[in-house]
């Protein structure tokens, strides 16, 4: 089925409008907000701090612990508060998307906690959460070898498009969502998920498209992080 024009008029490789802000939660060691279209993610980092109970501690390296959560009012039909199988899985893949850039060897026996809350959802929430969390980690002064950004790419009809919105995700003839996270410098893919039916070429094209999107997000992240100090 052909998809010739995006429902909201964007180009196929055009990301929705983005906005980022660092330092939004005072009590946290680091925090950030990332908005892409109508999706808004908040992230807070606490740590490195002592990990309790003690048996969870790793004497060789620190532990990164992520928690992804959607506010009950972030979606059209209220989501019951608390963890779900979906949120537990997203927490895990978020951890894996971020862990590779953090120098966890420096902090044995400790934990770095990352809390992500989606306050408004319109597709791409896990990616927005990862992009927010990377800024919050940097803001917390955590030693990181690279930054991470994430964007969802998808196949809508017969087209590969970037940053699907809710309407596109629900496209009648079927849409395949491929969330991708990538390191800014190394261009390594640290998150890649897919459910659907696509060809190898389509996957490779999706990653290529995601790379461009992640570069744009990285620019926004850089600006937001530097902005808080521009007068110092």
């Amino acid at each position: 089925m052909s998809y010739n024009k995006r429902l909201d008029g964007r180009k196929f490789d055009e990301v929705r409008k983005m906005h980022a802000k660092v330092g939004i939660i005072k009590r946290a060691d680091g925090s950030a907000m990332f908005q892409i279209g109508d999706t808004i993610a908040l992230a807070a980092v606490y740590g490195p701090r002592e990990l309790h109970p003690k048996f969870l501690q790793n004497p060789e390296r620190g532990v990164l612990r992520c928690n992804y959560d959607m506010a009950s009012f972030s979606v059209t039909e209220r989501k019951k508060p608390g963890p779900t199988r979906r949120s537990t899985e997203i927490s895990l893949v978020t951890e894996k998307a971020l862990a590779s850039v953090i120098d966890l060897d420096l902090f044995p026996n400790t934990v770095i906690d990352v809390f992500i809350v989606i306050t408004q959802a319109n597709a791409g929430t896990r990616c927005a959460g990862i992009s927010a969390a990377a800024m919050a980690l940097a803001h917390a002064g955590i030693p990181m070898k690279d930054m991470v950004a994430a964007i969802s790419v998808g196949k809508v009809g017969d087209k590969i498009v970037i940053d699907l919105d809710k309407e596109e995700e629900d496209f009648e003839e079927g849409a395949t969502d491929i969330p991708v996270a990538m390191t800014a410098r190394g261009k390594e893919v640290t998150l890649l998920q897919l459910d659907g039916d696509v060809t190898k070429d389509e996957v490779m094209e999706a990653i290529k498209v995601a790379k461009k999107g992640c570069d744009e997000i990285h620019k926004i992240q850089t600006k937001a992080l530097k902005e808080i100090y521009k007068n110092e």
Partner: protein
Amino acid sequence: MTGLILNEREIVIPGDKIASGMDYLPGNGAFREEEDIYSLQLGLVSLNGRFVKVIPLTGKYFPKEGDIVIGRVSDVGFGMWMIDIGCAYSAILNMRETPEFIDKGADLSHYYDFNDVIIAEVTKVVRYKDVSLTMKGQGLRKINGGKIIDITPSKVPRVIGKQGSMINMIKEGTGCNIVVGQNGKVWIKGDKVEDEVKATEVILKIEHESHTQGLTDTIKKMLEGN
């Protein structure tokens, strides 16, 4: 291109390339990958000879050798104390590093007990984790009375000011005795509680408005007015 790519005092985020080639060496907050040196932290580029460092601007306190810190005794062990200095790990104060002569086998809690607050200097930091302290040195001691407030460690230089100009102004203006730990803990003691409140207000103001222009004048006015 080899040499320095970014200048001193430039703001960097993790992964920014600071220098290229083997002329420079990575110091704290920086790392080498192949030929290049990158930032490991959000912070300011700083040069020390051939060493490229990044001074962190936010987050928890990361101890550095030579820092004067304010800490709390969190445990009394064999021949040493564990001191909480507000970072991920407790620091160690060996019994040989106190101004007093302490006999082997003495009860250490007799000298410094749980929850006692001390001013100490960081003597050694190994990979963020093993932090050693000393209390031998001018002004290093146990603190009695007064209060402790917490500020963001990265704002400490603003509170101290150039050559201590800001902190001296606050001390004179309020008549309080003040010690600013590099770990963001500030000890304030005055004759009257009003003086301590004033000093607190002024220091928190500096923390909140550290980026604004004309801060020194604002603070001066604050100290002169009532």
